[in-house]
Each structure stands twice: as C-alpha cells, then as structure tokens.
C-alpha cells in the first residue's frame, strides 16, 4: 500500500539541518501504524513527505505503486483529495462554513451531486455521532466534536490512506478515547490504511504497530499482541528506553 524507501530530508539554510536519514517503511493495506518519537525526531517531517505537502531530498515514496511526488501540481491536488485523507492536530476546519459544509467540502470540489453528498455526509455523521451539530458553525462546537468533524471530512471520499498528525493532541482524555476508537473502527470496517503521528502512548496503543523514530532515523518498532493494555506498557517501556525527557510524553492515562 505505502512504501517508503531510503527517504532523506535535508533543510537547506544557513545551517543545513538533516531531519530524516534513509527511512524505510512499509504499510500494508488495512494496517494501522503509529509513529512515535521525541520532539524534533522528524515524525512530522515524515508525515508531511508522505502526505505530499513536502518533498524528500532523496528517496522514494510509493502509494499503491504510484509516486505522488512525480505528479504535476494539479494532478497532485486531485490525488490528495481522492486518495488521501487528512486529520490535523488543529482540525483545520474552515470557520466560514458549517459543520456539514466542512464535511462535504472534498466532494463539492470534486463536483459530486448534492443528493449523493447529503447521503454520504448523513451516513458518516451518524457513525461518528455528530448528526446534531451538522448545522452549527465550527466555533460553536467543542474540540472533540471538531476532531470528529475533521475525521468525517477525511473519510467522506473513502480514501485509501488516512494520515493523522497528532489527532488527539488538542483533546481531553475522554475525547481522545472516543476519537481513537472511531479511527480503529474505521480502520477495521472500511479497511482503510492508517498512519498516525503521535506523542500520546495511549493513542498509539490503539494501533497495530508502533514505529519509533529518533534523530531522523528509524529506531525500532513493536507489534501489538492480543492485549492493548500490555501493548501500552511496551510502548511506555520503549519510550523510556529511548530516553528523551519525561516531559516529551503526555501524562499516562489509563
């Protein structure tokens, strides 16, 4: 599904900064992968490269056998809105639009029929439990609701790959739990591949596999076993093994 080979990223400048060094990574169809690492380890850079918002200095990114970085600007925009879904830490909703309008935005840009859009929006809103707030404006809803709206927007066009950048970063523990459970259920029901960058071990414990990055290199990876609780513990252990400062991680929530 997603194949990254020998991706490096160097930020040019007065002092050149190497953010990523020869990263290799594969995500299978329907897999849920979390990327963790201390601040400045290059997680977000990696996600930006995968999401085609940034270009790698060297190396290849292949999504379903296609290299999106080779596409022209317009084709890339189309690729993004057809094949990829995005969830951001700060939700990235347009405050001039209502919740419903925000959700259908990718479809309107594509020129889908209104009936079709309505149906899909309604369907997805129901499964995410946001039907009551459909006509509200974005500044009238809570963070948890906003993130669910963002998920709805990311999912409405049934993307093959869903990219999430700290989806729980702005949420309280209850909302985090809800959001993560939703992502898992989407992952299982729709067989959507999911790649998530997070600081939060709790959020990471919902994934099938956690990849640890440190100083722009792959550090290690651990797979989830049967038990989420045990997986969570393993993640915590790995984080402490990797070192870094304790305050890099959000407080443990069980």
């Amino acid at each position, binding site marked *: 599904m997603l194949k990254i080979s020998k991706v490096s990223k160097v930020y040019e400048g007065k002092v050149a900064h190497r953010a990523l060094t020869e990263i290799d990574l594969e995500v299978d169809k329907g897999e849920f992968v979390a990327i963790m690492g201390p601040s400045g380890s290059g997680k977000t850079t990696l996600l930006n490269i995968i999401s085609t918002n940034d270009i790698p200095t060297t190396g290849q990114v292949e999504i379903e056998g296609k290299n999106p970085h080779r596409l022209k600007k317009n084709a890339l925009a189309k690729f993004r809105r057809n094949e990829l879904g995005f969830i951001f830490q700060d939700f990235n909703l*347009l405050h001039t639009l209502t919740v419903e309008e925000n959700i259908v935005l990718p479809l309107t840009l594509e020129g889908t029929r209104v009936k079709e859009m309505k149906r899909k929006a309604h369907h997805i809103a129901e499964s995410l439990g946001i039907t009551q707030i459909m006509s509200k404006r974005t500044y009238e809803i809570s963070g948890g609701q906003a993130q669910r709206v963002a998920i709805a927007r990311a999912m409405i066009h049934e993307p093959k790959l869903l990219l999430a950048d700290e989806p729980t970063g702005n949420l309280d523990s209850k909302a985090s739990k809800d959001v993560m459970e939703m992502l898992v259920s989407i992952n299982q029901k729709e067989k959507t591949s999911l790649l998530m960058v997070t600081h939060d071990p709790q959020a990471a414990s919902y994934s099938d596999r956690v990849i640890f990055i440190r100083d722009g290199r792959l550090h290690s990876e651990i797979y989830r076993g049967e038990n989420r609780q045990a997986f969570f513990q393993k993640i915590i252990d790995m984080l402490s093994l990797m070192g870094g400062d304790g305050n890099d991680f959000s407080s443990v929530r069980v």
Partner: protein
Amino acid sequence: MTFRQFAFNNVLRNKRLYIAYFLSSMFTVMVFFTFAIFAFHPSFSSESINNNVLFGMTVAGGIIYVFSFFFILYSMSSFLQSRKKEFGLLMMLGASNGQIRLLVFLENVLIGFFATISGILAGLIFAKGILLIAENVLIISESLNFYFPTMAIVLTFISFIILFFCISVFVSFILRTKKLIDLIKGDKQSKGEPKASVILSVFAAFLLIAGYGIALYVKGIYVIYVMIPVILVVTLGTYLLFTQLSVYFIRKLKNNQSVFWRKTNMLLFSDLSFRMKDNARTFFMVAIISTVAFSAIGTLYGLQSYLTKEIKAVNPYTFMYKPWSDDTEEVIANDISKINAIFQEEQIEAKMEQLELNYFDTPIRYGDEPLRSNGVLIARASDYNRFAALIEEEELHPEENEAIVVEQSDAMLMMGTKASEKLKESTIQLDNGQVIQPGDVIESEVLSEIEGYYVVNDKVYELLGAPTRTQLSIAWEAIGAGHNQTVEAGRKLAEQLEFKVTSIDYTIYEINKAFGPILFIGLFIGIVFFVSAGSFLYFRLFTDLDEEKRKFRSIAKIGLTQSELKKVVSRQVALLFFLPIVVALIHGAVALTALSRLFDFNLIVESSIVLGSFALIQIIYFLIVRFFYVKQVKRSVL
C-alpha cells in the same frame, strides 16, 4: 527595549502588514499635494483666471481634505480590526489599555510622517505627468509649466501632519477594549451577516426604482427640482441594496444547495456572506464615490460638448459676415477687403457665397394677423441651394405652389413651441392673390435664422413684393486650411471686426479656453474620487489577505488544484471590483440621462465615452490587482 523602541520596531520589521495602510495614506497625501500644486500654480493665480475658479479650487481642496480624513480613518479602523489578535496577545502579556493606545498612536505618527514625506515626493512626479497631459489636452492660455511648489509642499506637510495627529488621537479612542477572549478569537468569529429583512429588501428595490423612475421621467427645468430628493432616495436605496437586498440574495443562494454546493461555489459564497458586513459598507462607499466621479466628469464633459455642438450647429460655415444694419456699402466693402487680407495672411483658401436675406411681413398671415412684427425670412430656392452647396447639404426644389418650412435643429430651443409650428399654420399671400400653404418641414443649418424660415420657388419669390428689411450675409467655407490657421484668422477677425464676423473655430477655441481650467478641476476631482474608490477596494482586499492565505492553505492540504484556487480568488476579486462599479455605472447613466433631459440635448455619446472609459480603467485595475493577489495567495499555498 523601551516601549517606544517596541512600537518603532513593530512597524519597521513588520513592513508587509503595514504596507497597505501606508500606501493608501501615501496615496491620499499624493492626491492632495498634486491638487495643491495646481491650486498654487502661478498661471492660475494670475488675473486671467477669475475668482470663481479660484473659489472652486479652494472648495475642491477642502472636499479632498475632508474626504482624506474619512478615508484614512476608515483604512485605519479596518487595519486595526485585522490586528485584534495581536492586541489580545499584548494584553495577555500585561499591556495596559493606555499602553496599547500609546502603541497605536506612535505607530500612526510614524506611518503618517513617512506617508506624508513619500506622498509629497510621489506627488511631485505625478504632478509633472498631469501637467504634461493638461497642457496638451486642455487649452490653457498660459502654458502650465512645472515649478518647484514650495507653498504646496508646506501646505500639504502641515495639513497632513495635523490630520494624522488628529486621526492618531481619534483612533486610539476607537479601540474600545473588549473582553480579552473576544480579541484573541477576533479573527475567527464572524462579525455576523447583517440581518436581511424582506420588507427592507423590497423597500430597497422600491427606492431604487422610484428614484430612477423620477429621474428618467421628468424633463427640462423640473430635473433641478427633483435632483436633491432623487439623490437622497437613490443613496438610501443603494445602501439598502448592499446591506439588505444583496444579503437576502446570498442567503437565498446559500439555501439552494444545488447551487451552493456546486464545486467551488461553496468557498466563494461562504466567504462572501462571512464578510458581508464589511463588504456591504465598502460596496456602498465605492458605489457612491464612483457615482460622484462619473456624474461630475460626465456633467462637465456633456456641458462642454453641449456648448460647442450648439455653436457648431448654428454656425455651419467657417466664417460668417453680417454687417450692422446701418453700415454703408463703403464700410461693407472695406470690411470684406480686410477679411480677404487676413485670409491671404493666413494662407486660407475659402469659397465665398453672398446673399441678401429678405424678411417679409405683409404676405404672411397667421390667422388674420401678420405672423411676426419684424418679418419672416423667405429665401429663394436658388439662393438656398448656393449656400447648401458650400457645406454639401441637400438642395431644395419647392414646387410653384409650395413653401418649405426650414427650422434649425431643435437643440437650441429648450422650451416653448417649435418655430416650425407657427410657420406651418401660416399662409403666404402672393401679389397675384395666390395663397401658398406651407408644405414639408425640414431641419437644416444652411441659413442661420433661429426662428425658422420658408424656402420658395424662384418664380414665386418674384411675386412676394417688397421685403420689410434685408440683411446681408456672407459665408466662407475654408478649403483644406488647418485648424490653427482658421483659429488664428478668427482671432485677427475678432480683433478688427468685432461682432460682425463669426469664426466657428475661433469661438470654440475661446470656449475651450474658458472651459479648460473648470474642466480640468472637474476631471481631476472625478479622477481623485474614482481612484480613491479603487484604493478602498484594494484596501478591503489586502486587509483580509492573511486570513485568505490561511484558509487556502488549509484547503490546499485537502487538495485544491491551482486552477480551482485561481477561479475562486478571481471570482471573489471580480465581485468586489465590479459589483459596486456596475451599480455606480447604472447610477451614472441615469444621472447623465436626467442631465440630457434638462438640456434637451442628446448626451449618449458623451455618457458612453465617460462611463466606458471608467469601466475600461476598472477592468485594467482589476486585472492588475488580481494578478498580484492570486500570486500572493498561490505563493502561500506552495
């Protein structure tokens, strides 16, 4: 870092944010300064320009100054609106109200100072350009040469330093402190769509229709009576049009999901309604200001062309000589030799025709009475045709039992019955007892007689008897002589044979000369208003630029193609640029139509030229602004 340093650095290191405000301030200074250069121009202050013109200039200067004040105030307040978040942050860090006011005050003084200086510099260059145009396009007897305008510089500098100081004081009080949270979230929250009530929307439409209806219905002198009420009604109507009718319209559109949810429409209209309050105000101001500009220029241009056309209509020949009735033949012969001498001097070749105009009294009956006490002109067809050949008019061949009524184009006669109507109802009694009924009425300028005349068959003419009075009329039509030659000859003729010779080119030259400065001032004020309207739009657009960039950046992450982005941005800019201008163009067209009704003179050509050139300028302005705006947004997106 002291607080003062902070304020200075805040401006100097944040140039992009301040540039729009700075530019519009600078621009205002430049306009005022350019105007001051003219007002203090040596050739205007000499006695050749009368006091009325000088007074007009002073008033115009005052208007520009007052307008500058409101313009800068408006720019400033919307500039501050866009910086709410920054103030919120400062307050969160513990800045007191007083400090924020001081910050705004210092910033303003700083910007104002530099805007004044650079405005004056830019104005010097601009003035040079305008002077060049003025010299070539308008006829002003003394050439308007460029001079170093010490007086204008001093006046502009002092006026604007005072103005910026007042605004700085004023604005720091505008900045009412709201709750901190409102300031910080200020950019996210909609100022709200203005409420659109159906009643007020209908009322808006009603006001506009009524205003237009009245303006288009009335004729003649009544135009002046209804002018003020119509202006008030239409202004109010325009205000409601933008604040109510357009909001109502957009609401309806938003509710219609098959339109609103189609492709990029959603982005366009949601944004439009989000900013409706600001937009409505801008639209209203731009529309009204542009209307003033269109009407001012249209009126002056129309008036000038009305006068010149009138004179041209009455005087179809290059030169016309009519001696006084008590001039002896000797005087006339002397005059004609003088005229010929002048023609030779100026190397003008002209075809000449001469004619005794005979006015008859007794044979013409209007009922039982003679038609006019001082006689009515009856011309022989052959005489008429000789003159007609001179200016290539159609010849007339009346039958023996017919008289053709000729009148000059009705332009000259604003009110009262047309000359032809009485002539048509009269009859001509010949010596042999025959009575001739006037036949066709035609319009022609061949012979100059305001009250109209008859043209009869040569044979009939012999039977008319003795004329009451006669008037010699000699016409010259210059062949291939240049405009400058005929003007020069006209000037000499006017000196030597005052009032006896009419020289059309010279007369028009004189009118243009007298009209030049007035037209210039009108044109200048019109341009100032129009450009200011453009500046408003520019400011409106660039105040929201950062917000726009942020919005498009988030959409681009989801996937927005370049062409879609360009489409949305272009439409947004186009709406902002053309909606108020189209309204202003319609207003202007109605105003000019009303004006033409006042003079009973067709102004369609003049109106189309004026309105068309404004529309063209606006289109060019739109294309330029769009280019830069799209570029800015695109660059921020990637």
